[in-house]
């Protein structure tokens, strides 16, 4: 899958002269997997679940394009766009947090993580307003196939944002305690990778469900 490295390119294009990866053992120019392999198994499993979900959406849509197009018009594009912006920015904040911690800049790490969490919370708030409008209109999982997918996919993702925020919260607390630094950013990277996945999924979900016609 082309999504194998949402984390690594993010840490690549830093314009600071320092190498993107610690290259103490640069003799063997092996590529290092950021974060824990266990988290990558989990990310892969999650991506697979979403992939099957997206494919099911495409399949169901192909069988009733008219219904999907008509129902899609009722979605709030602005809310979706704002949320995209919030998550992408939040993801970038996490990158900055990891870079700060790699410089042993604890305060910077805490600040950037807090900013990232703010973005995540912002996403949740916007989403709650969006849901409230839909539920007020009497829309449920059983309204029609489009809304079934709309609510299922966005709610499944919504819960991932919550889980991601819990993870960021733990990372923030640990950074605050000084648990991470130049030689110990392994867990931070693992959590960051998860947050990038949450972001990435939204970047696929938003155009697929809200925009594409």
């Amino acid at each position, binding site marked *: 899958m082309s999504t194998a490295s949402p984390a690594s390119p993010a840490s690549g294009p830093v314009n600071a002269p320092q190498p993107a990866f610690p290259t103490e053992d640069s003799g063997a120019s092996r590529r290092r997997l950021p974060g824990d392999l*266990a988290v990558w*198994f*989990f990310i892969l*499993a*999650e991506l*697979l*679940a979403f992939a*099957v*979900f997206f494919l*099911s959406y495409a399949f*169901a849509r192909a069988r009733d394009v008219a219904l999907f197009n008509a129902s899609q018009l009722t979605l709030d594009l602005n809310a979706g766009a704002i949320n995209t912006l919030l998550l992408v920015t939040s993801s970038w904040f996490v990158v900055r947090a990891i870079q700060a911690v790699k410089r042993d800049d604890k305060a910077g790490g805490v600040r950037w993580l807090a900013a990232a969490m703010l973005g995540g919370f912002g996403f949740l708030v916007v989403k709650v307003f969006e849901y409230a409008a839909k539920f007020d209109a009497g829309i449920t*999982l*059983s309204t029609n196939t489009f809304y*079934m*997918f709309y609510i*299922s996919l966005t709610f499944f993702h919504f819960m991932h944002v919550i889980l991601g925020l819990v993870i960021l919260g733990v990372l923030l607390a640990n950074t605050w305690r000084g648990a991470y630094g130049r030689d110990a950013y392994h867990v931070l990277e693992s959590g960051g990778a998860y947050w990038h996945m949450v972001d990435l999924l939204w970047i696929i979900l938003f155009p697929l469900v809200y925009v594409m016609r």
Partner: protein
Amino acid sequence: MQYKSQAVATPYFIAAIGLFAGQILFGIVLGLQYVLGDFLFPAIPFNIARMVHTNLLIVWLLFGFMGAAYYMIPEESETELFSPKLAIALFWIFLVAGALTIVGYLAVPYATLAQLTGNDLLATMGREFLEQPLPTKLGIVVVALAFLFNITMTVLKGRKTSISIVMLLGLWGLAVFFLFSFYNPANIVLDKFFWWWVVHLWVEGVWELILGAMLSFVLIKVTGVDREVIEKWLYVIVTMTLISGIIGTGHHFYWIGAPEYWQWWGSIFSALEPIPFFALTVFAFNMVNRRRREHPNKAAVLWALGTGVMSFLGAGVWGFLHTLAPVNYYTHGTQITAAHGHMAFYGAYVMVVLTMISYAMPILRGRAANSNKAQVLEMWSFWLMTVAMVFITLFLTAAGILQVWLQRVSESPLPFMVAQDQISLFYWLREGSGVVFLIGLLCYIASFFVRGEEKTA
């Protein structure tokens, strides 16, 4: 054996095998009733025999799990069992309660049994797999709680390994989800929905934790591979199991009155369910290939590998075969389901319990492994039972495909019984395979009595 108190596992394993034999005998009766409808009628009608068959399966697997826990937990915790006396007392209580229940099924009409045992106070009986009278159900809860207390206290006072944690979580989950068997509303739709909280969340949820823990324990022992390696893979596999399996419960909600979105949720997540089983197979083979020692108990290694392969085939492949809603619309409640059920239960749970027994029994009897002669016979029993089960599954699958075609798909659908008559050939073949399975089981039991030069540790 490293700890004296591990010996309490012995009666549990013996009872498990005894009840297993009973289960298979009733299986043979059921198979015969499929083709000779009046066999043993009206003395033992099909529903009674089936109840005995399935309840014995559950009870002997529980004996197996408990025996396994009593064997594993002291060794994992590096301490004696909290209370061996309690373990022995619980064994007798559970065995007597189980035996009385089976006698009750066979001796009096089910409606009378219900009346005698207070089903009118709290109606819980007469639902598939949960047919046990109220006192038995309460007994199961009491035994389970006392057992869990014993095991948990042992873990708490000793070393806490990942295998112990996963095993404990599985056993606690087993007890907790069993509580839903006491919920039986007059609304059949609600009844069915929460019935699956017992049945599915057992076999495709918490039991798989038990399975993973048991298999990992045996693999560490017979391969000598680093515990650290095995335990982290155990975590990865059980994570996959639960993230696919919990929402995968949805594949039971398609046609029982639940909202129709379950057709999507259930299909999507149960499509992922084969992955953890595949991982389990790869895991077992990998660990055996990376073994650091040649364990004298070759039979146990064979069972362990067999568990991986057969659980993948039975639960993974045969499950996937009919799990997608559009397919399941036609296959639901046919012999296809029976085919999957047989191979999945055998491949996952029967085999993992036999793996544990195969590994632990020789040690409990004071040797590292059985004599070569005994092991050869045990391996024969492995192949006889496993191949017989493959054929049972294939014949039931063929019967199921024909049944779906004749009864549900063709231009002029046939009534149920007419369709059944058309496929009786496959039921005969299945019965033949069942007899081979029984022969395999007899070889298995005989292997315990074969002497010869035994290997000391």
